[in-house]
């Protein structure tokens, strides 16, 4: 009898153990703000897509060190740069496995062929994969990689050499970007042979910590932790992206325990989140800047005194309070403080309407003038309410006699017209791509960008030469010096009123451990446990 009882207990325990192990799989739910555009990160530019693809499924030759904008080794263990800065030789990691998908099982580890395929597809129009799935590689061309990379050579299976057309220090940071995510050439070849090359972009295998299991359009993305991941299996077993476009609903789900991490909360909900014992409200300054650009090719903004006067006449603290509701920090430089080479010593224009009026009179406008402020029609991280911001500036400027009319267009139209310089002054901003100062300064203020993303239409020789110099050396100390100096010139010439860097908030459930905010705006779940 006793024996029988013991047996029964054992059997029950075993059954219990089985059922718990089935349910013990830890699942982390991330309530993402939208659907990915697709599963090949090289095609797209949206952060939502990168979170679902490159950040958690893929690896790159170099990676951003989590929580910083610095790079660290990824699929390349190290690299050498030639003395002329034109040749980069990468030594690749051995023993890196690719995921397995429903209809593809890799037979070999990651090697040089995969690297060459990834970049050749994007840059070489003759690559059989170049035109597959529409074939537009916006970031690759946008970062100038098509003209920068002259040739990629395979030295051996684990060594690859990139030969550039000119020395370009931000090249390494570019390789850590999402478009440079490494694909499997073996999979690509298999699909090409089967006559279904476009499947590579729908169901790619990669080398990252999570592999995609299922995507239900506009609803869910399911991943499992990749057990052969080269850095070791992730601490969670399953990762689910629950696509929830509305911020209030994301918050409701977080409160109800239906999600563990949510991005982009409503500023109005922050106070309540902070008080909630089940929620840990994380925050960090974002890698972005919101600014007002003067059209420096249009009168009266051709005169530096006018630009300085309006800078003095703008009360930034009022804007931070009203528009950012505290979730922003006044900006004095065009690059955010978390970025290397940020010049702390630059002194911002204080709020001083009296001095502003005097400067304006000196410039020949004692009674002010009429102008316009363009306000964006959309909400962006660097500017949650452009209309409100424009109204505050309008009022500030009216105190020194400058009458500004607020103008707005539909977003695509707004971007297009401001590119052409139809505005007098325009509100816009930028979120960094790769953590390199060049990605802010040269892209937004370089002479090459006039008529493009340089909305101030500003080309200053002194400033531009400093940037060009910094591009050509890979010595970080030297580059830092050049960028610091460039920020001084920028402030003196005042092509923009630098307004704010927003603070990024990410509420997570208390039981989530190890989550870090990425200053570049991504959402990574490899290090997270629950």
């Amino acid at each position: 009898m006793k024996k029988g009882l013991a047996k029964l207990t054992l059997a029950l325990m075993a059954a219990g153990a089985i059922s718990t192990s089935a349910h013990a799989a830890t699942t982390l739910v991330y309530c993402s703000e939208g659907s990915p555009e697709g599963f090949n990160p090289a095609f797209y530019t949206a952060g939502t897509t990168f979170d679902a693809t490159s950040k958690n499924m893929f690896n790159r030759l170099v990676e951003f060190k989590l929580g910083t904008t610095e790079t660290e080794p990824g699929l390349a263990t190290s690299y050498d740069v030639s003395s002329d800065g034109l040749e980069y030789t990468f030594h690749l990691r051995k023993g890196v496995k690719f995921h397995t998908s429903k209809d593809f099982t890799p037979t070999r580890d990651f090697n040089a062929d995969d690297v060459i395929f990834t970049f050749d597809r994007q840059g070489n129009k003759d690559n059989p994969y170049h035109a597959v799935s529409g074939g537009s590689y916006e970031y690759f061309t946008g970062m100038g990689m098509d003209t920068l990379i002259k040739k990629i050579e395979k030295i051996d299976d684990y060594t690859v050499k990139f030969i550039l057309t000119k020395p370009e220090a931000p090249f390494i940071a570019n390789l850590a970007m999402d478009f440079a995510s490494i694909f499997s050439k073996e999979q690509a070849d298999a699909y090409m042979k089967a006559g279904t090359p476009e499947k590579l972009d729908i169901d790619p295998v990669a080398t990252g910590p999570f592999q995609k299991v299922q995507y239900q359009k506009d609803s869910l993305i399911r991943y499992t932790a990749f057990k052969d991941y080269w850095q070791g299996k992730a601490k969670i077993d399953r990762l689910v992206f629950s696509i929830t476009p509305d911020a209030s609903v994301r918050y409701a789900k977080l409160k109800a325990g239906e999600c563990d991490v949510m991005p982009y909360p409503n500023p109005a909900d922050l106070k309540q989140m902070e008080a909630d014992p089940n929620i840990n409200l994380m925050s960090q300054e974002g890698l972005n800047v919101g600014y007002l650009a003067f059209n420096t090719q249009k009168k009266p903004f051709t005169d530096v005194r006018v630009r300085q006067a309006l800078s003095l006449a703008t009360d930034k603290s009022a804007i931070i309070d009203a528009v950012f509701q505290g979730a922003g920090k006044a900006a004095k430089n065009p690059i955010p403080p978390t970025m290397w080479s940020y010049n702390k010593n630059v002194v911002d224009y204080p709020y001083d309407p009296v001095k502003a009026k005097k400067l304006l009179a000196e410039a020949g406008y004692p009674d002010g003038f009429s102008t316009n402020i363009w306000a964006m029609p959309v909400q962006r991280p660097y500017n949650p309410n452009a209309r409100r911001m424009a109204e505050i500036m309008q009022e500030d400027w009216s105190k020194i006699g400058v009458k500004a009319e607020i103008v707005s267009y539909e977003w695509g139209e707004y971007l297009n017209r401001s590119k052409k310089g139809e505005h007098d002054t325009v509100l816009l901003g930028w979120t960094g791509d790769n953590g390199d100062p060049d990605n802010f300064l040269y892209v937004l203020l370089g002479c090459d960008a006039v008529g493009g993303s340089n909305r101030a239409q500003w080309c200053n020789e002194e400033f531009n030469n400093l940037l060009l110099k910094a591009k050509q050396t890979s010595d970080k100390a030297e580059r830092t010096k050049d960028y610091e100096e460039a920020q001084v010139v920028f402030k003196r010439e005042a092509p923009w009123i630098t307004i704010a860097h927003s603070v990024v908030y990410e509420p997570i459930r208390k039981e989530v451990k190890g989550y870090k905010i990425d200053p570049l705006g991504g959402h990574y779940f490899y290090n997270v446990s629950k």
Partner: protein
Amino acid sequence: MFQFIFRRLSLVIPTFLGITLLTFTLIRLIPGDPIEVMAGERGVSAERHAELSAQLGFDKPLYVQYYHYVTGVLQGDLGNSLITREPVMKEFLTLFPATIELAFCAAIFAILIGLPAGIFAAVKRGTVIDHSVMTFSLTGYSMPIFWWALLLMLVFSVNLGWTPVSGRIDVVYWIDDVTGFMLIDSLLSGEEGAFASAVSHLILPSIVLGTIPMAVIARMTRSSMLEVLSEDYIRTARAKGIAPWRVIVIHALRNALIPVITVIGLQVGILLSGAILTETVFAWPGIGKWLIESIGRRDYPVVQGGILIVACIIIVVNLLVDITYGIVNPRIRHSR
């Protein structure tokens, strides 16, 4: 009967052409270049812009683009989304089951509550019951959906924890996409509790989406019933001593149903064309949300194709309503 259906069908072709022309023009009249919208702050160079325009066929004159579009449609090709690059038809078919499922449950809710409430109010005309039903339905009719959804969500999901906040099924269930209908797929999966989870996820969205149709149905049923109830034949029926419920259900309701069916038909058509607000709030992956997002992104092929399909659905539903009239009331079938 066939002649009747044929006559109705022949009207569909010009309607169909009109819709293609209308959607094609309207989406292009909204300012905003899809390429610029795609590129955002980053922008694209003029050369790249021209290259992409050529690739997408936007460099051709509008009438050529329209011709390509219509010939494509006639061959069953609605084009590919500019964003996801997937065929529009495929995207639609992926999302439509979710919309049907929600529309079906919302319609059931609306009919089950709205119809009896309307009948009841008509029978008890002028009483407190009548007034409360009417006040209730007027409130329902004028309810701002977004607010109503968030209110229900906060009360029932966050505070009471009775229903889930959003989505179609709990994330612990990994259900394979077989039919696209979560209720069916969850049953097919055989996972314990999956079906119950799918049902619980449908409750709040169905109530929210069904609120306005319910109010409309209740009001329409009431007024139609009142009209019929004052007819002579009803008085005659009552005078003959037929049981009161028989008078109401058999004699009055059948005749009062015609306008109600019209309303139900129209409402179902609207429900099937996707519920933009409800789908957005409950993160429901249906076609309403899909279309509205595509308009924002100037995804021309999706907007054109999606609206065309939705219009077809409405045409079909209307046709079915007309046929139902014929069944309910033979006079309509035979009249010219």
